[in-house]
């Protein structure tokens, strides 16, 4: 199968290249960025859940499944699925033959079992262990009650089976970069240092890590997909500062960068870059969570009035410079259950005032909104929201806090409004379940949303086998959630990568645009780093 | 205003002649005339004392001879300083440097701060030999040690390698003298050479200067505020007040019969004139009542008028000029003290 070639073609179409499949050039060096919060902490995928780390390990390691940009869902990567048991709980896989780790050893079924058991048995526990806990017996093993995970069994060298606790699609759990497969002997040889010199089975092998500066990878010649990867070298430069990144990219020191909202219009307007922007609605929904325990906000009319009073379209266009998609519900436009016909509240101050009057708050009230310093979903936005809400008499004060503190307040319910961004993918039912009344308030349903009608629709969706019905139920539930205005829906993030003209194969990855698979990326001869 | 009586002819016996020297300083408050028309003459082999309170311009006069006035703030605006047949003020910087430390040298008031704290004392002496005699390092060292011995330092070989902070104040001043006399200058200017020293040391230093003077056949200018200290060794005295010379004359005449009220006050301030008291506890110069006038705003009349016991009306309106009253003797006062009838004591 040549799935990746397909991906390239799909990408070429997206970014507007000629339809003829251009032959991929081999060789060259690629400078990419690691744009998030500073240093890379560990290259052991099991020991970190930071995007900054995983966007690198994603190219050193492979997971059982991997996210497919054009299918917008996880696809099998390392193995074929041989069978699924009738109860839908036991999956039997067979690894592709001749898959090598960077240390030259072929991957075996036992490596899968070792990797998953390692995540559960690590001290402290792996931050990614939650994905593995869907396997039968995982919890018992983690707590030391069993010496192996009951649901994992090796059938032969290449074949293994996984038995789950519930009927869920394992693809949505085992595609995570944090569940990558590691070679036991290399891990054991390195001990605690494995994260400093990782050995995986991905297209690139680890070369050098200049701490705090960059990670250098080089082509793995025995990568299982023929002819891939194309690039000889791949460097991830840690560049936290948007302005620094911007200047470095324009000085052609980088081959692709993550674009911030502030710079987005400039790239859009610049003909030399505008054709090479890779954009995607990432599966994150930005919102302000309203605390239903705060009297005015307990009234649905007030919450709706707020939604009517804020012109999110203008905020998205002006404040975020168009680097966002207007929301219609919880599920983002990249979700398979996205309601393309859905509509938001729109901007209607008169209606908002009327609702406020109906609710008995004609004179308004005071409202404190907490947020981080984040430019796209932090106090800056809350300030703008305050400007709008002042028109219906609500006096907004904002307070900037750090993520960790904000999260503590969110969990404790110690707030009136908090502006934040939550994951709203990948699996729509799982995403909507966040607001199910049975979800604990401190593990997702922070606004204590409780609507039996909504719960019922989700339960129906879970129990149906009819794919279309399922989507209908989900969309109906999402509409109810949006209409209840338990949160103010702000936008879905539009993630943007600016790419140099000589670069091919960068994809709009909806789970996190920085999770690029460089197995598919190549550069033209006119790249300054072509050879 | 009458000029000084000093003849203009170049006298071969004349060691240095200063004619109508004016020195100004730029200050935050305006131009300060520190020296206002100073003239005097020093004969070969003579010891001359310039006496006055601080601020009288005596040190500035001395520094002017060396042309060591800080160029940024001070300026010799007019005058002549004739030395060795040349007007020093007309010499270029190169010639001046040839002369400094060689034909004319100077020692300063503060022996501690006048020596480079980071340089061995021997090197500081040797520097002069290397500069003016163009000798090599070894020869400079030999000469320096010899010079240190000559100024009375014990164990000069050891002292050579010591730093200023390691030796006593008296020794430092001896080192300064060694530096000054290294090249056997014709003229030595000593600016308050003993003020910073203990009473016992003061005499030794003055004796040393006196001894070396006769040995080297040089002329000496001693700048001092304390007539008593130098009374025994000076031949000729120039008294300065507020930037001007107010009285000149041979030491004996001045001490016996001061003609200017200021000179008289200075002498009165010394308890036992003519007796250099080495061991006895000497009281400080008895202060003359009042303060030196502000040179930025000089009175119209005599500068000493305000403090003068004999002042008359004319003193506050008209500035007296220098009048010759004898051989190398002149005074700047409307009322010469020797003509008692013209005074009535207040």
């Amino acid at each position, binding site marked *: 199968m040549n799935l990746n070639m397909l991906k390239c073609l799909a990408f070429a179409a997206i970014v507007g290249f000629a339809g003829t499949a251009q032959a991929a050039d081999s060789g060259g060096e690629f400078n990419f960025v690691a744009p998030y919060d500073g240093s890379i902490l560990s290259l052991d995928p099991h020991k970190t859940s930071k995007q900054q780390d995983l966007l690198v390990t994603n190219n050193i390691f492979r997971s059982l499944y991997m996210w497919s940009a054009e299918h917008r869902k996880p696809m099998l990567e390392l193995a074929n699925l041989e069978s699924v048991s009738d109860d839908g709980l036991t999956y039997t896989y067979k690894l592709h033959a001749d898959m090598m780790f960077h240390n030259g050893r072929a991957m075996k079924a036992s490596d899968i079992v070792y990797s998953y058991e390692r995540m559960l048995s690590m001290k402290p526990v792996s931050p990614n262990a939650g994905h593995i806990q869907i396997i039968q017996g995982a919890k018992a093993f983690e707590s030391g009650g069993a010496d192996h995970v009951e649901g994992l069994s090796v059938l032969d060298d290449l074949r293994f089976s996984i038995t789950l606790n519930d009927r869920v699609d394992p693809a949505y759990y085992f595609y995570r970069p944090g569940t990558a497969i590691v070679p036991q002997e290399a891990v054991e040889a390195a001990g605690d240092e494995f994260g400093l010199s990782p050995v995986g089975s991905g297209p690139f092998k680890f070369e050098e890590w200049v701490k705090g500066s960059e990670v250098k990878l080089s082509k793995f010649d025995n990568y299982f997909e023929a002819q891939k990867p194309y690039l000889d070298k791949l460097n991830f430069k840690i560049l936290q500062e948007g*302005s620094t990144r911007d200047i470095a990219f324009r000085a052609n020191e980088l081959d692709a960068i993550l674009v911030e909202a502030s710079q987005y219009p400039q790239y859009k307007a610049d003909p030399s870059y505008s054709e090479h922007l890779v954009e995607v609605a990432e599966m994150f929904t930005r919102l302000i969570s309203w605390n239903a325990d705060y009297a005015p906000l307990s009234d649905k009319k007030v919450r709706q009035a707020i939604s009517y009073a804020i012109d999110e379209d203008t905020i998205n266009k002006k404040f975020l410079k168009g680097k966002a998609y207007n929301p219609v519900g919880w599920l983002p436009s990249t979700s398979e259950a996205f309601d393309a016909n859905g509509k938001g509240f729109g901007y209607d101050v008169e209606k908002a005032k009327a609702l406020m009057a109906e609710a008995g708050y004609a004179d308004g009230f005071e409202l404190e909104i907490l947020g981080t310093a984040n430019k796209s979903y932090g106090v800056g936005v809350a300030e703008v929201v305050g400007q709008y809400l002042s028109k219906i008499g609500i006096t907004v004060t904002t307070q900037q806090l750090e993520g960790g503190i904000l999260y503590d307040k969110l969990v404790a319910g110690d707030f009136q409004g908090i502006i934040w961004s939550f994951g709203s993918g990948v699996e729509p039912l799982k995403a909507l379940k966040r607001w199910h009344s049975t979800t604990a308030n401190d593990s997702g349903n922070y606004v204590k949303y409780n609507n039996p009608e909504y719960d019922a629709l989700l339960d129906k969706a879970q129990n149906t086998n009819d794919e279309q019905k399922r989507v209908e139920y989900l969309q109906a539930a999402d509409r109810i959630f949006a209409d209840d205005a338990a949160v103010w829906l702000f936008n879905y993030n539009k993630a943007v990568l600016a790419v140099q003209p000589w670069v091919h194969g960068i994809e709009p990855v909806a789970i996190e645009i920085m999770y690029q698979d460089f197995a598919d990326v190549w550069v033209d001869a006119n790249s300054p780093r072509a050879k | 205003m009458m000029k000084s009586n000093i003849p203009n002819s170049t006298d071969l016996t004349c060691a240095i002649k200063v004619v109508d020297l004016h020195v100004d300083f730029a200050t935050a408050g305006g131009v300060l005339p520190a020296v206002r028309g100073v003239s005097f003459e020093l004969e070969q082999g003579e010891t001359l004392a310039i006496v006055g309170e601080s601020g009288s311009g005596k040190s500035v006069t001395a520094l002017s001879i060396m042309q060591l006035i800080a160029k940024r703030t001070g300026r010799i605006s007019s005058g002549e300083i004739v030395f060795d047949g040349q007007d020093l003020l007309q010499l270029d910087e190169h010639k001046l440097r040839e002369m400094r430390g060689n034909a004319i040298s100077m020692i300063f008031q503060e022996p501690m701060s006048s020596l480079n704290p980071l340089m061995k004392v021997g090197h500081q002496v040797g520097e002069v030999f290397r500069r003016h005699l163009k000798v090599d390092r070894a020869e400079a060292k030999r000469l320096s040690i010899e010079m240190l011995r000559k100024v009375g330092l014990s164990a000069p070989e050891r002292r050579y390698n010591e730093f200023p902070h390691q030796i006593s104040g008296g020794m430092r001043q001896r080192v300064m003298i060694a530096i000054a006399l290294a090249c056997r200058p014709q003229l030595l200017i000593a600016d308050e050479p003993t003020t910073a020293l203990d009473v016992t040391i003061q005499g030794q230093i003055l004796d040393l200067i006196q001894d070396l003077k006769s040995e080297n056949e040089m002329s000496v200018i001693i700048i001092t505020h304390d007539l008593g200290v130098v009374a025994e060794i000076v031949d000729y005295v120039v008294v300065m007040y507020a930037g001007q010379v107010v009285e000149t004359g041979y030491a004996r005449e001045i001490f016996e019969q001061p003609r200017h009220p200021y000179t008289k006050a200075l002498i009165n301030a010394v308890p036992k004139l003519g007796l250099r008291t080495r061991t006895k506890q000497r009281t400080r110069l008895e202060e003359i009542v009042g303060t030196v006038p502000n040179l930025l705003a000089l009175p119209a009349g005599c500068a000493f008028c305000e403090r003068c016991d004999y002042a008359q009306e004319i003193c506050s309106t008209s500035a007296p000029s220098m009048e010759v009253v004898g051989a190398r003797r002149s005074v700047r006062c409307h009322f010469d003290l020797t003509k008692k009838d013209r005074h009535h004591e207040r």
Partner: protein
Amino acid sequence: MMLKSIFAHKNLMFGGTIVVLVVLMAIAAPLLAPFDPVFDADLMNSEMPPGGEFLFGTDTNGRDVLSRVIHGARISLSVGLVTQILNTIIGVSLGLVAGYMGRFWDDLIMGLTNIMLSIPVIVFALAIMAALGPGLINLFIALGLTNWAYTCRITRAQVLSDKKKDYVKAAKSLGYSRASIMFTQIMPNILGPVLVIATLGSAEAILLEAALSFLGLGAQPPTPSWGGMLSSARDLLFVAPWLSIFPGIAIFVTVLGFNMLGDGLRDLLDPKSVGATKLGGVR
């Protein structure tokens, strides 16, 4: 004489003029500023270039940059003033105690001073800001608690030298209490150097506010602080250069003014201190 020499010091005049102008700007901010720096925001006016209604252009929120720069003077001045008052109070008090009480107290306070001198101010302030969270008041605390070591040292040194002087002995023999001697006799003598340090310290505090804003822990938005404005405009260098130019110049000129003023004050009050040629800004 005093007045004359004030005029004779160009840096004092120049710095003083700037600082006075900034102070006037801060006082008259509501009169001078054409718009409200926080509430007159309209997204429709987002990022308008300078000219027309908005002389210095507008920011991303559509607020008038000129008005924000004018009001920013209040923030920056209060940062300079409040932090220096705190630093001076702490530094002088500890210095007096150390110098006057001696022994245990001296050792303790000088130990603490040495510790304070070895921790870079910005790192210390950063840690405090992280503990307290961003915001103007917290900024006052963070910068006001961390930069007193120089004042303390100088006060102590002055006390030690004054202690030997006659007037202090005289005051003691007249039966004045320790505390009253400390404050009434010694304070006037340390006023000069302390004033110099505080003036230069103001410059430093304004720059530190900018640096902390850059690190995300300055005065929090929508406070129109120059450092915050400059910091949030750094991504917009290509897009909206006016957003960084005006607050940047404001900081530069004000800090320059305080530095010149402090420099001039030192020439005037404390001309001999070569060692203390520090300037606000780098520490």
